[in-house]
């Protein structure tokens, strides 16, 4: 047990130090503020929970808020958990050391999962947490519900975490062989995530037949059973929060059962998957001939930055996933039948097509924060370009160009795919392109200031570099703020036509881009020189 605690402590310390590293401790207020920033991101989650609560209260079943959010939460946790688990188990640098320690296999597996637990719990706090608090306080404070709700919240990450571990470890030992291993890991995981979420969506799909609903509404718990019947833990959890000890017991038991299962299999998974994967990690990849070819400095450096992403499955997976969220959502929802092609051609949706198309095309810029990790991704190899005869300005510039190239590639793919499904015309494409170019230029440029401010070069697992750190939070926050301002502008112009609105918003982002250029090359170029690897 002591060994487990010691090992877990290290993992968690590592996890948190990555998050808080380089906070400006001189200014306490600033320190606290930066810690609170992520909390601001909770606002949209509160909005979501409130909306759900209102609609479910209207039909008399406010507790369904919890059921719904819990199911969504589990999906989200599986979605976020799988890449994270892969990164900390298969690509983290400490495994080589840990593997030599005299500790049992299941201890290693569980201590590694500690940081996954915290990560998933944070996601849980955002969604399940807010809905529990809203449910427990909005119509008078229900103390028991709140306490049980918080318990449920603490337990909630276990199930998705263990399920994904049990899926991922054997899966990786299957695909982690042979030459094209990284490629297989990426493709395999995309498919895996799609399947897991697809199954979830299928399971929780509600058949909207008026008769059946009326019928069920007349029974107690009818709707709850309907929504949760394919995923019983959601029922148990809901009733647990309502105060049912029996269901609470069932929910806790189920989680315990999964822990036991993982403990039973840990040894096998460890030797079959982890060790094997690490062993074959340095398989000789020999290809091509010795060549002598000169390229321009810019091309060489951009190639290097792109290779840093493509050579690391976690980086690549992260980049691809955030970029193609719209495609993933579309494919999944159309597979499960919740979305039909006719919907897009309906009258009611017509005025919004241009907005949908614009947003879809601009997703890589809005969802991705490639520039915010452009320096961090390089990690300990960052010193390399610093001793070469390249100016700091060029060094920053090529990083931004790399983000631009990747984002525009993503946008073009999304644009073509969406144009196939959505009834778009030439003007729409032009406007969407203008908006996409403006947002991509702005975010790609300003994001690098965040990374220069907080370079974080010593990461132990690649997820720490591109996901679980404050830089990503800051860049998301930046998007929430600019998005808020953009929304205000939209409201102010609502009497104008969609074309004009998108035109004005694009101009708005271009102006921001010009400001960003001054900030980055004016202020942050000096700071870049001072980054000490």
């Amino acid at each position, binding site marked *: 047990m002591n060994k487990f605690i010691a090992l877990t402590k290290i993992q968690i310390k590592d996890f948190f130090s990555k998050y808080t590293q380089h906070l400006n401790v001189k200014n306490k207020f600033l320190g606290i503020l930066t810690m609170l920033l992520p909390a601001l991101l909770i606002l949209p989650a509160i909005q979501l929970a409130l909306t759900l609560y209102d609609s479910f209260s209207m039909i008399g079943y406010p507790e369904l808020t919890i059921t719904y959010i819990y199911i969504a939460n589990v999906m989200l946790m599986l979605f976020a958990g799988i890449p994270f688990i892969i990164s900390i188990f298969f690509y983290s640098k400490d495994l080589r050391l840990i593997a030599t320690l005299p500790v049992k296999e299941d201890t290693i597996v569980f201590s590694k999962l500690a940081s996954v637990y915290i990560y998933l719990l944070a996601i849980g706090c955002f969604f399940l947490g807010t809905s529990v608090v809203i449910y427990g306080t909005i119509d008078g404070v229900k103390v028991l519900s709140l306490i049980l709700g918080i318990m449920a919240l603490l337990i909630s990450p276990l199930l998705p975490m263990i399920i994904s571990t049990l899926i991922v470890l054997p899966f990786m030992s299957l695909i982690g062989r042979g030459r094209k291993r990284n490629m297989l890991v990426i493709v395999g995981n995309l498919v895996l995530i799609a399947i897991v979420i697809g199954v979830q969506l299928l399971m929780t799909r509600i058949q909207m037949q008026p008769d059946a609903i009326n019928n069920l509404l007349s029974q107690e718990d009818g709707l709850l059973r309907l929504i949760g019947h394919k995923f019983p833990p959601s029922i148990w959890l809901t009733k647990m929060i309502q105060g049912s000890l029996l269901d609470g017991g069932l929910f806790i038991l189920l989680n315990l059962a999964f822990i036991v299962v993982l403990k039973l299999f840990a040894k096998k998974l460890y030797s079959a998957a982890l060790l094997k994967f690490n062993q074959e990690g340095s398989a000789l990849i020999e290809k091509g001939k010795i060549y002598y070819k000169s390229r321009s400095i810019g091309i060489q450096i951009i190639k290097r930055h792109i290779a840093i992403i493509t050579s690391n499955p976690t980086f690549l997976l992260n980049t691809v996933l955030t970029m193609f969220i719209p495609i993933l959502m579309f494919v999944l929802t159309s597979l499960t039948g919740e979305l039909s092609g006719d919907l897009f051609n309906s009258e009611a949706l017509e005025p919004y097509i241009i907005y949908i198309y614009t947003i879809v095309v601009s997703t890589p810029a809005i969802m991705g924060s490639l520039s915010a990790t452009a320096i961090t991704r390089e990690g300990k190899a960052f010193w390399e370009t610093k*001793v070469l005869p390249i100016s700091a300005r060029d060094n920053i510039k090529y990083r931004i160009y790399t983000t631009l190239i990747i984002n525009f590639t993503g946008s073009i793919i999304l644009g073509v795919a969406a144009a196939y499904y959505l009834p778009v015309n030439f003007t729409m494409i032009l406007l969407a392109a203008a908006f996409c170019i403006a947002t991509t230029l702005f975010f790609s440029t300003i994001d690098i200031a965040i990374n220069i401010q907080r370079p974080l070069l010593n990461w132990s697992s690649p997820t720490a570099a591109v996901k679980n750190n404050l830089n990503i939070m800051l860049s998301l926050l930046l998007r929430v703020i600019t998005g808020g301002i953009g929304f205000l502008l939209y409201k102010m112009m609502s009497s104008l036509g969609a074309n004009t609105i998108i035109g004005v918003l694009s101009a708005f982002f271009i102006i921001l881009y010009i400001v960003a250029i001054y900030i980055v090359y004016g202020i942050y170029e000096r700071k870049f020189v001072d980054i000490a690897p």
Partner: protein
Amino acid sequence: MLLVKNVSKVYDNKKKAVDNLSLEIKKGEIIGFIGPNGAGKTTTIRMITGIIAPTQGTIEINGIDISKEPVGAKKNFTFVPDHPTIFDAVKGIDYLNFIADIHEVPIQQRKERIERFTKAFQIYDALTQTINSYSHGMKQKLLVSGALLPNPNLFILDEPMVGLDPHSAKILKDIMRDHCQKGGTVFFSSHVLEVVENLCHRVAIIHRGKLIACDTLENIKKNSTATLEEIFLEMTKDE
């Protein structure tokens, strides 16, 4: 070739790693830089190479101030660090072409030098493999080969002998000597005193951030018969 003037480095506002250090190296010299662990060798070298900025003082390479004109100064030297941590998912030959492109080495010279150095170091056949499959010593030799490609005026190395087999260490020593004979300058840190003794025109000794000696071996020995090891231990012993 290298002029370090009153340079200090303070880490995190408290740890003074290098204290008012001055040093001048002339063209054609080989200088060995020695000192106990934590004395400030790596810190000094990192300032000279522009990886970190000094808290105080100036550094000029071939007459160019590295903080004022970094690109101009960096065209004059190449550097091999104490740990070969480089982006290693590319092939050895990719790395060498990368360095050659950034330093603008023409194709013909590039080919000739890559063949000469990597064959001498016996890593030529490994150039088509990705660097992450290399051993520590192979990476080290790849970095040295890369650093030699541009035929730099000043060649800076931080503990270059660590991890090299005797054969490779000998080749590296020959290369360093050869580089000086052709008018180049070499500045390297080391814990291997015999190498320093045999190779260097002058020796710089750093202790607790301060330069406590910088002279020819004969002058440091002051006509005594002691070895460099004995002198080193005497000079850097804790009171």
